[in-house]
């Protein structure tokens, strides 16, 4: 019974991860097509599902920086750095935004 429960949980977690990945892919699609507001909405949806999703914060940062939302972008990259202190890309973007 315990084994069944843990299998069920693993399945659910895997499904959740898949859902988040899909949402981020949709966000990227919007970003690449210059639909920046739609991309932001997708990344925020992913963050609502997983508040520790580095990918979602990183892509949110890129999108906000592209539309000159400096404060928003800085916060998003700061979140990435807090979750993964060695994230080179986020550090580079963050430093650039702090200098502005």
């Amino acid at each position, binding site marked *: 019974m315990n084994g069944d429960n843990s299998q069920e949980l693993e399945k659910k977690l895997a499904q959740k991860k898949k859902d988040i990945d899909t949402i981020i892919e949709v966000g*990227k699609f919007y*970003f*690449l*097509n*210059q639909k*920046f*507001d739609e991309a932001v909405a997708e990344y925020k949806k992913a963050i609502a599902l997983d508040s520790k999703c580095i990918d979602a914060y990183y*892509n949110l940062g*890129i999108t906000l*920086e*592209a*539309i*000159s939302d*400096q*404060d928003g972008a800085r916060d998003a990259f700061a979140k990435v750095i807090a979750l993964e202190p060695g994230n080179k*890309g986020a550090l580079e973007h963050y430093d650039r935004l702090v200098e*502005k």
Partner: protein
Amino acid sequence: MRQFAVIGLGQFGSSVALSLAEKGCDVLAIDSDQDRVDEISEQVSQSVTVDAADEKALKSLGMKDIDVAIVSTGEDIEASISIVLILKEIGVKEIIAKAVTPIHGTILKKVGADRVVFPERDMGERIAESLASPNVMDYSEISDTHSIVELVAPKKFWTKKISELRFEENAMVSIVAIKRKVPVVTAEGETEFREEINIKPSPEEKINRSDILIMIGSFEGIQKVRGIQ
């Protein structure tokens, strides 16, 4: 190649000296503080520890060949005035001096500075501008009546052609360039953006959501455009 001397290696002076050196210019860096000179010595062509307000010492450096001298000992008002006077006497072709107050600036001009700069005041104005309007990325006055500004494209402009904006004739403002962030996919498959600059965009150019408009115009005109949401 033009030869530069930077006198006073505080934050402003050392930043000017390093930027000139990075551009491949010959730079003679001078300060009375040995530590400051040591900090910069490897990056500039020549560096000397000397009290530049000391006439004999400054003359002994043989600065006749210097094309432009930047006097950045602004905080020490008396020293900066003396240095400008000495440089003028030596025959330095162009003297640029940093001032901390308008009166200081006037005196520096009277004693021979060809150009006076107020870096603290200018930076203060820029910061105030960007704080007062977060959509202003950069701002610089180019005369007593005109300025150049980098402005995040207002929503009202998105998808419109420059020719459709019709603010130029009303506000006497021109878009001289557009900085655009273009989404790209990196070699690693990540999404990123690349910044492109379109100098002198055509009237048919459409404004994008991610554009930063570089505009030149009168203070009033720029103010009008900044008010557009």
